[in-house]
């Protein structure tokens, strides 16, 4: 493991971070699939409003860690506190409605319902709210949900496409609809699992910029995984690098240099 020795500026960075409230506090979690150890003694703290990139080679445990954070995966040891909701080891995966209400999730592929309109897909973001049967389609949704969904589509510059079916949109546009769905409830935490991986470089760049801008504008904590080191450096305040299920390196994005990158992906 490469040692990171903070200099004076970086020490101030960490002091400032520690003084803020923690959005995510991961204490010593481990996770195993059968004989394969996926995560080993992970300790991570992410402050509210921080933008963090989670990087690492395939199989490093990035996606599993994200799923553990929102209670989608049961982990074997340790404890997680996401937005104040405590998740304990071997705790059955519960609905955790309150937590999911405060977290926006964006997947590698957009994971939208292709045959429905962009607006209906954004209205799906209200699932888990009271009367969620009305979130099936925008035709049934209350006025306030429709209005918020339209505003959210406006934030991703797709208000004019609100009635267009998602399977008629480009990959980049569909991913922007997915971001609008994740942002529609004004989440305190936005989690994105390789959001630009299925897009061409230009569309990927647009998506990452949009993420960064929206999270800064709304003071949302942003945690995303990526294989693109340039994206991680440009659109995050801090990088957490995972290698074989362990934290390999963590520190300010600007300090992640090509040598570290080579060591991480060797």
């Amino acid at each position, binding site marked *: 493991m490469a040692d990171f020795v903070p200099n004076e500026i970086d020490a101030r960075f960490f002091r400032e971070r520690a003084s803020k409230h923690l959005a995510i506090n991961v204490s010593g979690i481990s996770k195993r699939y059968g004989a394969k150890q996926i995560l080993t003694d992970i300790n991570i703290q992410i402050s509210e409003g921080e933008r963090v990139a989670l990087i690492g080679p395939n199989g490093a445990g990035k996606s599993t860690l994200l799923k553990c954070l929102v209670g989608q995966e049961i982990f074997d040891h340790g404890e997680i506190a996401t937005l104040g909701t405590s998740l304990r080891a071997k705790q059955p995966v519960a609905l955790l409605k309150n937590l*999911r209400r405060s977290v926006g*999730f964006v997947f590698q592929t957009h994971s939208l319902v292709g045959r429905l309109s962009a607006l209906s897909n954004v209205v*799906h973001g209200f*699932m888990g709210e009271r009367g969620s*049967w009305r*979130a099936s389609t925008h035709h049934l949704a209350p006025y306030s949900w429709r209005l918020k969904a339209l505003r959210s589509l406006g934030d991703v510059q797709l208000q004019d496409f609100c009635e267009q079916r998602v399977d008629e949109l480009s990959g980049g546009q569909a991913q922007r609809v997915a971001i609008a769905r994740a942002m529609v409830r004004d989440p305190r935490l936005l989690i994105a699992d390789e959001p630009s991986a299925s897009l061409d470089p230009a569309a990927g760049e647009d998506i990452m910029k949009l993420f960064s801008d929206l999270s800064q504008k709304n003071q949302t904590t942003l945690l995303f995984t990526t294989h693109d080191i340039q994206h991680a450096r440009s659109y995050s305040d801090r990088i957490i690098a995972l290698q074989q299920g362990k934290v390999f390196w963590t520190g300010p994005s600007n300090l992640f240099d090509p040598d570290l990158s080579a060591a991480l992906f060797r």
Partner: protein
Amino acid sequence: MSKKPKYVPKRTPKIGSFSFVCLVAIGAIILSSIGDVAPSPQRIFEGIPRLTNLLGRMLPPNMEEEFIFRMFWVLIETMEIAIAGTFIGIFLSLPIAWFSAKGISPLGPFRWLIRGVVSLCRTIPDLVWALIFVSTVGLGAVAGTMTIVVDTLGFCGRFFAEAFEDTDPKAKQAIRTIGGNQWNIISSAIIPEAMPSLINTSLYALERAIRSSVVLGLVGAGGIGQELKVAFDLFQYKNASAIILAIFVIVMAMETLTDWLRKKVS
């Protein structure tokens, strides 16, 4: 010019001894069936004068105003049996498909019980169901409608379940992550994605129901089949030919309509 390749695959694959025995057995079954029950050219030749005689007695079809008027209302009843039976059958097939679909059913492994019921509905021929319902609820259109309901349930129950199973798992996963429950997943992701398949299957079920409803009367389950049986039993061949003509027109019209609707949907 390149050299001759070292190995050229054989045109016909090698057949093992077990496959050879199976092929011979299948051939023997086909030949024995044809020998036992297929019409010989002599039987066909002998039947031609009788067919000509029958056609002579059937033509021209009975076009008397009173008869046509009476048949019109019987045809309407036949259509009603088909439409009501199909509609109720489709309505009942939706929850049945939900309970029997793999990965969606809330019954887990017990979904096979529902599958078994659907298979039972499908494998017993409609005329047998009609006989059962005529014995249960008496002669007439109600027995015919119940037959169509069961027949549609067997057909749509299976294909709806397959359509549900084939939907994109990513969209379902996304709705679950947002906080949606099982009902939200079905109404927001599964039904919209499976809709073209559901409509196509339903239209095909309607076509089948129209064809079935015209023959159900042969065993007393209402509709125009009952009139056809009476016409043949009383040697009223001109009436019979008029009824056959009406059945042809109604089935063709329905097939044209469903084809047009299917194209619209796709």
